[in-house]
């Protein structure tokens, strides 16, 4: 039985009293990216939003953090510190694999949770000085820290002759006192990260490794109840909180669990 509220303070730290290494296993999270059930193809104008806009994805980079494993009855394990934040560049295969821990307590888990992006505690300006994470930095004057996600794409509608770039970037939002996005008129900031909780039936077996696939349906960012119209945001959304808010609402539903592989 997993005890309530156990916290792994390091990916490689021993367990708290009562849990021995013999009762633990290894978990790897594998990130997959798809559109309409098919693997994401970059640089190809083959996707269409529910509003009828064609688009292609050129870059997709994001942070996930605050990973937690939950068992029925409220028990949970929270991954912290050195392995608590993972950067994914969907173009770089190696970044799609997140090896969590040597010492995740063995047991049955029925859901996993994570933060999409970085919460206030993790989103500290200057914490990443090396690339590629460094290149996710979010200007200090716009709230600081790091982009939660950079999705660079090109799109067109039926009225347009050519595709146009669009920077679908998420991070800390700003509240402006005036009608323009002048940083000198910022009166407050808004955290746009959001929690994701996914049902999963996982058995962590002692001295075994498991792989859990988390799939991002890229098209989900633009479809659904909060259909995203690129034409409404000609200047992007970094400085447009309503755009980021709409995006974040959609983002809550873009993830799903893929079949688990036990090794």
């Amino acid at each position, binding site marked *: 039985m997993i005890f309530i509220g156990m916290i792994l303070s390091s990916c490689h730290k021993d367990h708290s009293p009562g849990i021995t290494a013999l009762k633990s296993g290894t978990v790897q999270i594998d990130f997959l990216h798809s559109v309409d059930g098919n693997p994401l193809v970059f640089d190809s104008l083959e996707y269409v939003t529910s509003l009828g806009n064609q688009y292609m994805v050129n870059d997709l980079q994001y942070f996930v953090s605050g990973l937690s494993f939950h068992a029925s009855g409220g028990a949970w394990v929270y991954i912290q510190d050195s392995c608590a934040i993972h950067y994914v560049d969907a173009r770089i295969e190696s970044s799609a694999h997140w090896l969590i821990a040597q010492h995740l307590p063995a047991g049955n888990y029925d859901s996993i949770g994570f933060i999409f992006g970085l919460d206030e505690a993790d989103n500290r300006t200057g914490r990443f000085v090396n690339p590629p994470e460094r290149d996710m930095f979010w200007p200090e004057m716009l709230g600081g820290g790091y982009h939660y996600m950079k999705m660079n794409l090109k799109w067109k509608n039926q009225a347009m002759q050519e595709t146009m770039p669009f920077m679908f970037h998420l991070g800390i939002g700003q509240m402006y006192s005036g009608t323009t996005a002048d940083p000198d008129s910022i009166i407050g900031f808004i955290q746009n990260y959001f929690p994701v909780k996914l049902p999963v039936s996982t058995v962590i077996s002692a001295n075994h490794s498991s792989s859990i696939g988390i799939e991002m349906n890229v098209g989900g960012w633009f479809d659904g109840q909060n259909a995203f119209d690129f034409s409404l945001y000609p200047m*992007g959304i970094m400085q447009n909180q309503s755009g980021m808010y709409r995006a974040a609402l959609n983002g809550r539903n873009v993830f799903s669990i893929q079949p688990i592989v036990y090794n």
Partner: protein
Amino acid sequence: MKNAAFFFFILFMVSLISCKKPADAPASSITTPYQITIPSHFPAKLNIPSDNPMTVEGVTLGRFLFYDGRLSGRTDPDSMMSCANCHIQANSFVCGINNPKYTNGHPFGLTGILTPHYMLPMINLVWADHGYLWNGSVSEANPSPRPQNIEDVVWMAIQAPHEMHGDTNRTKTLIQSLKGYPDLFMKAFGSETVTIRNTGKAIAQFVRTLISANSKFDRFLKGQEQLTTSERTGFVLFMTEQGGDCFHCHGGDGNPLFTTNLFYNNGKDTVFDDLRDRYHVTQNLSDIGAYKAPTLRNLVFTAPYMHDGRFKTLDEVIDFYSSGVVWSPSISPLMHHVATHGVQLLPKQKADLKAFLLTLTDSSFVTNPDYSRPLKMPDEK
């Protein structure tokens, strides 16, 4: 007892000196590690190949070689050429737009052939990644023997018709014959034998010491100096998506290298005929017309701008990003203002942005005596 200890010490030292090592042997233990002090806000991860650790002796040798025209393998004054012929410290190691020899800042080799591209500034390369040159064709990702690092750029420069147009055998024979150099190679690499590989290693070590981190903006980041109103307004423009949106490619307060070292088609052209763009490295259609984003540090010294030197002044560059951007299928998705041909800055905004860019000037870099030509070459008395 004391004499015996002294005897064994001498014996040990003699054995060190008399040991014959292969010419490319790694630096012996008697070299002195060269410590790079990482400036505030700079990356902790240095790009130093594991087979060429920085040593004081290697840097010293590299500095001599960098400035020695006999690297071309020739001694006739008209046919000597060193790295420093074009990489001039006063211009942040580009030749400079007002160079009396290289018209409009476009260098050429000993035979008069122009280099395919204009020059990239040689600043903070110890943090460079994603390859070297405008297209990143010199890359650690290349399989050997294709060029992978600064070390390889040296033999490439010796051989290239548009640079020294030389012969590496002739170069190493000449350097070997010059008094003082064999001893410097011994100190740096444990062998008096001059090799092109060790020549490249030494020069690469010197180049990796060229660090610029003392601009007004650096001091601003450290809280030591304030920006003027105009400079601060320019900084805001630089850092905002709805302003100039420079930071996505060129860094900023979160990336003081002022480059991501990545490759972008920044919307200069609609027709592409350069066989040395990023596309010709990756074969990825989205890389057509893409080039490495250069650092913006010391812009004041590094004109002309872009891979083909098309912009002679900083004002021309700002005008281009304001209203001169053109669409092409491979334009970078970060050039999201292309629908309006640019970020549409007003004259005052252009002036403010320029004022900020000039805060990236680090005059101490271009006058640092450690980066300058040695007072005497090894064979000079």
